[in-house]
């Protein structure tokens, strides 16, 4: 009988190996069809008109001229007269036409009259900001003040991160087609199984009649959980016109309306003993995620057990598109504020940063893991040879420095169901209503089935991305791999046990004595008794067997787990005459329990590091304070890192005893948390001053150098 547990190391043929993703070839040859690529017979194109002001009242919307244009199928107001515009990019009207070009041009003929108001755009200056909500955690103010005042070493600093967007390579949107009293949707989504629920109203039918199909998608990062207003508009137009409709956001609209990571700023006071033992943390933090404000920062990040803590938080409202969860919501900002302040404290104490973090690890939840990871990261980056006290003293404008950061994440699996079918011809398939965001989910699901059945990966047909398949959770919060691998292992085990029931009599043993291994079914402990897989499956006769598996929301299966630690170190060069930062080397050391596919796991970390260099050095949503318009809603001035920018990346995954037996844990978020902090710390170590706010662009670096009296 196959056990629903992960195989031991000696019994793993696929799990933990470096396996190329199953959909690599179709993606790299362009044969993979994304929502953007879907084309249906007679399809029309919908476009959205968005408000160009951060704050305004809609006086009137007139679509009549637009509807007269040849090729326009229809135009609809999406706001009512008198409605408030709360951010530039808010949808005001929609339009559909027979070509994208006509739709784009015809939008200009929709006449909207606004009463323009002054938008609230400031999130940087707390005293001038519009505070929405405040949350203070001050267990013992007097002791905090006293400890700070008496601390042998103290720092007071300002730290922050500008608001950024998700900037998915594939914009939000979908194709909708109404036919045979059912709705067919091809969206770009992180949430296949639940996507239809949000469209039932627009489609005028129950979610059960809405078919969702997302085979490939070009990034979500937390911004694609919902079907969204545009999904509903697209669906409604499809129903109303009876024609298939494509509605994908354009890049500018995507950057304004389809996702933002809140800004975060903090004034921090912290104290330590002369030898670098932290004694007190006192912070006032604020940030804005647009209209809805933002949640409080979790500072001091991971060093939550520092003895004296005061934490004041303000949520600031601005007239910007609302925040959406951005890969590890809140963590990169909290991490930056904490690690930067603590590194400043180390520098003030004159204690080496690595030694400082090691000395205070007992204030974290996972000191042993961090200790081991810090050692490995230090080796990989050559810490001993490169480390120097704050401020590189070599002559010349190029200063080199090292920075460290630590992070954590949960990553338990979400609710999930799978079915695995074994056919009489020996083929096997798995159905699961999950999605592959590019992270390798399809491959992981295939590996789990193949490993469980003792088959090569290519013998398993993996079916994902449709809501007809057993429901699986949204891909967010690093919950996917734990969810899908658990339910799939469960389902594959159930199917295999059903097969064992048929095979056992032929081998003259009980089903509980069988195991599947390398293409055969064996009797445990008796090498002479086995049956090739295909022959065994032929015993099924005419009817395939299907096993069902599930991963409850919180479970006792022990197949997944939660709680990881990671360490990153950056080696940078700062040109102190131009303020330009160059990444030399960047190291990530990460645990995530049992790794299903080492290659896609490493890829996940590389991707996170590149995304991290991007937000550390370049990325920023820039808004006009007067009109509230986003000024860089394009990919020219909304700057993402390219290959020339990222330096040499090194990834080390923690595996083996102590890690593998924990079960599968998610990896999407953790590696993207530390880059801002590690790179900011490296810049401080190089040039001798803290650049308070990321991205670390030349204007910010030069301003900090000037303020620190270090401008050449």
């Amino acid at each position, binding site marked *: 009988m196959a056990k629903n547990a992960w195989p031991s190391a000696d019994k793993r043929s696929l799990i933990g190996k470096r396996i190329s993703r199953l959909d690599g070839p179709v993606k790299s040859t362009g044969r993979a069809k994304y929502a953007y690529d879907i084309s249906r017979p007679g399809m029309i194109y919908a476009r959205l008109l968005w408000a160009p002001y951060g704050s305004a009242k809609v006086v009137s919307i007139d679509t009549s001229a637009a509807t007269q244009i040849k090729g326009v199928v229809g135009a609809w107001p999406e706001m009512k007269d008198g409605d408030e515009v709360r951010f530039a990019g808010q949808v005001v009207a929609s339009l559909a036409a027979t070509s994208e070009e006509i739709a*784009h041009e015809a939008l200009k003929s929709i006449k909207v009259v606004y009463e323009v108001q002054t938008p609230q755009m400031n999130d940087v200056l707390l005293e001038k900001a519009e505070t929405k909500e405040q949350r203070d955690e001050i267990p013992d103010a007097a002791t905090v003040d006293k400890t700070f005042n008496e601390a042998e070493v103290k720092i007071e600093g300002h730290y922050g991160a500008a608001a950024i967007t998700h900037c998915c390579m594939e914009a939000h949107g979908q194709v909708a087609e109404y036919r045979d009293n059912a709705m067919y949707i091809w969206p770009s989504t992180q949430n296949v199984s639940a996507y239809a629920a949000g469209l039932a109203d627009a489609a005028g039918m129950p979610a059960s009649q809405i078919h969702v199909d997302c085979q490939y998608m070009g990034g979500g990062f937390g911004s694609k959980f919902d079907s969204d207003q545009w999904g509903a508009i697209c669906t409604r137009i499809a129903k109303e016109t009876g024609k298939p409709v494509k509605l994908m956001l354009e890049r500018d609209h995507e950057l304004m309306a389809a996702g933002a990571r809140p800004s975060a700023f903090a004034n921090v006071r912290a104290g330590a003993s002369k030898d670098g033992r932290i004694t007190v943390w006192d912070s006032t933090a604020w940030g804005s995620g647009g209209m809805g404000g933002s949640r409080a920062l979790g500072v001091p990040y991971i060093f939550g057990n520092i003895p004296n803590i005061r934490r004041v938080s303000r949520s600031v409202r601005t007239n910007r598109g609302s925040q959406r969860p951005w890969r590890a919501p809140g963590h990169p900002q909290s991490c930056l504020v904490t690690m930067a302040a603590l590194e400043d404290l180390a520098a003030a104490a004159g204690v080496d940063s690595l030694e400082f973090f090691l000395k205070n690890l007992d204030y974290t939840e996972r000191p042993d893991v961090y200790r081991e990871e810090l050692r490995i990261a230090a080796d990989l980056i050559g810490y001993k040879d490169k480390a120097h006290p704050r401020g590189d003293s070599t002559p010349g404008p190029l200063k080199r420095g090292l920075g460290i950061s630590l992070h954590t994440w949960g990553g338990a699996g979400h609710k999930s169901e799978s079915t695995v079918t074994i056919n009489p011809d020996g083929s096997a398939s798995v159905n699961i209503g999950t999605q592959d965001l590019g992270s390798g989910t399809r491959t992981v699901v295939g590996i789990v089935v193949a490993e469980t059945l003792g088959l090569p990966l290519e013998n398993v047909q993996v079916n994902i991305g449709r809501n007809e398949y057993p429901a699986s959770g949204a891909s967010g919060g690093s919950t996917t791999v734990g969810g899908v691998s658990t339910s799939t292992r469960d389902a594959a085990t159930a199917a295999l046990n059903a097969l064992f029931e048929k095979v056992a009599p032929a081998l003259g043993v009980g089903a509980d004595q069988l195991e599947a291994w390398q293409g055969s079914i064996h009797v445990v402990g008796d090498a002479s008794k086995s049956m090739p897989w295909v022959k065994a499956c032929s015993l099924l006769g005419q009817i395939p067997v299907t096993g069902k598996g599930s991963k409850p929301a919180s479970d006792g299966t022990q197949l997944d787990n939660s709680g990881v630690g990671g360490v990153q170190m950056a080696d940078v060069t700062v040109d102190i005459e131009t303020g330009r930062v160059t990444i030399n080397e960047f190291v990530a050391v990460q645990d995530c329990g049992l790794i299903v596919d080492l290659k896609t796991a490493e890829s996940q970390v590389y991707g996170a590091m590149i995304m991290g260099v991007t937000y550390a050095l370049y990325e920023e949503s820039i808004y006009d304070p007067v009109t509230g318009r986003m000024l860089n809603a394009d990919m020219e001035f909304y700057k993402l890192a390219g290959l020339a*920018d990222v330096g040499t990346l090194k990834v080390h995954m923690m595996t083996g005893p102590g890690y593998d037996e924990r079960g599968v844990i998610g990896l999407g978020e953790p590696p993207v948390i530390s880059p801002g902090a590690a790179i900011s710390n490296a810049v401080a170590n190089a040039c001798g001053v803290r650049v308070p706010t990321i991205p670390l662009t030349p204007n910010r670096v030069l301003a900090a150098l000037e303020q620190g009296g270090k401008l050449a």
Partner: protein
Amino acid sequence: MNAFEYAQPATLDEAQALLTSASGPVAVLAGGTDLLTAMKQGIVNPARVVSLKSIEELRGIEVSSDAVRIGAMTTLSELAAHPDVARLYPCLVTAIKGIGSPQIANMGTVGGDLCQHPRCWYYRNGFGLFGMNNGASLVLEGDNRYHAIFGNDGPAKFVNVSSLAPGLIALDATFNVRGADKQMRDIPAADFFKTPSAPEESLTSLAAGEVLTHITIPAAQTRNATYEVRERHGLDWPLVTASVAYTDAGGSAQNVRVVLGHVAPTPWVVDAAAKTLEGKAIDEAAAAACGTSAVADAKPLSMNGYKVQLAKVAVKRALLAAAG
């Protein structure tokens, strides 16, 4: 993008006839890397687009003993790859490499680079060339981190973004222009660029129907170099660029030209700073002093003071690069 007529004539005569006979606004199309974007953004709305692609005489590079003559339709990649250009004018090659995009360099032309529209984000977002809203300058009140630090007293606060222009001015190039009347005229590179004081005024000294046909650069051996500062290492616009050229007379510099790019509504010639080097050996101290002098008159806006520092350093480093 609005609907428009499209023509691809084979001769300049035909092209110019097409440019002057249209009833609405016209646009010359070279590589299209800027024009098509500007049309999609709705900031240029021609009724007729005339492509120069099939006009043979506008392509190619001719080298004679006293000059190098570059057709306006020569692509940026072709220019950078030409052995004589690489030998004589490293300042141009650096400027082209700095664009950081083989795709743009393969499509973009010399003429197009010199005539391209500003990238000012207020302009590109539909607030007009001067970025005005209800009679007030959004550039002044808003985010001007990439705007002008020189020549910004008038309504124009944008920067000229041609990376080739500073080098061509430093090299004393001449722009050869053909009028609708088929007459050629020569414009010194530095005089080609204009700062408009009203939105309808031109950014260049090209009159209606005129086409830039060639660029002529003296073939004299100079020391020249470009240094630019960008945020990213790959594809990105320079924050500041400096191109310099001088004649090396036995270790002392003569005819020094120092030209800044991306700092003013036109390429910005800093003759006074250049003069400080006349007859001197270019060393670290002299180069640094020239950089300081080059930015003496800078008038940064609220958010772009850092560009003054960058301009200072770019001049110094360009000079040191030229001196080798």
